[in-house]
């Protein structure tokens, strides 16, 4: 089972994703952390998320680039957070995939999906603004948008979290009404 969780900043995506993981039961829980703690603000964010996960029995794997190299126990429940950080790392860090970011992340996710019993991926909606970005920021939106579409194809469920309320764009049982996919 693979679930893609998306939504705006501070919308309750993480809490929802963690609930999903816990609901998968007693399998080993792996947290793949992608935020590189490069300053005080990001360290605080990391700390906040660590506190949220406390007591839920997660083992944390840090992965800033090269998702394909990550090994998780077979049948484990994996939470990857957040795709938007991973994409930025791959694009802008020296050892990142740069212009091959979309393909490399796709490979990484497929590899994870094969190893894990259940996979939950948190991503981010950053696409509905009036300012149209050029250069790196525009490319970043393009890459993340493409990856989100690819992940949605792979996923069994796609959920947009709006202020803690889940809106299902794709659902395993029953299916959301009016749903239609690109592919």
């Amino acid at each position, binding site marked *: 089972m693979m679930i893609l969780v998306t939504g705006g900043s501070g919308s309750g995506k993480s809490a929802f994703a963690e609930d999903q993981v816990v609901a998968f039961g007693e399998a080993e829980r792996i947290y793949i952390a992608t935020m590189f703690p490069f300053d005080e603000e990001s360290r605080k964010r990391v700390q906040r998320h660590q506190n949220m996960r406390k007591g839920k029995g997660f083992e944390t794997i840090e992965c800033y680039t090269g998702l394909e190299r990550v090994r998780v126990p077979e049948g484990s429940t994996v939470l990857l957070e957040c795709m938007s950080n991973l994409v930025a790392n791959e694009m802008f860090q020296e050892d990142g995939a740069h212009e091959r970011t979309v393909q490399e992340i796709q490979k990484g996710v497929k590899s994870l999906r094969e190893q894990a019993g259940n996979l939950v991926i948190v991503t981010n909606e950053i696409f*509905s603004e009036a300012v149209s970005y050029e250069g790196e920021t525009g490319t970043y939106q393009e890459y993340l948008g493409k990856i989100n579409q690819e992940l949605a194809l792979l996923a069994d469920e796609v959920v947009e979290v709006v202020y803690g309320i889940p809106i299902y764009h794709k659902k395993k049982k029953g299916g959301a009404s009016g749903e239609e996919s690109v592919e």
Partner: protein
Amino acid sequence: MEMMIGGAFQGKSALAEKRYPQVNWINGADADWEMLSCAKGVLGFHEYIRKEMKAGRSVDQLAEDLIRVNPDVILVSDEVGYGVVPIDAFDRAYREAVGRICTKLADYSHRVTRVVCGIGTVIKDA
């Protein structure tokens, strides 16, 4: 009239072209009013609004005019109103115009599909 809306890079155009393969789509960024008024389908409709405003032409009556002359057109447009209020005055006016125009057009449309992560959800089917 029908609309397909959503954020940038969500696969709106791909979904529109898949749903209506027979339609000869035009791009809002390259279209003039003549083209818009007889088009079967328009991709990047928001770009038409931006282009007109950049050229100093009024878009106040765009929704009403389009409904009058081309009531069966299929419009694919970005949603641009979810971010921080832009610093630039033109960006603010553009953002507001896209919202107002698309709201009127969505009110007239029989079907509106919102696309997230490549998945279209029909949010209006009247």
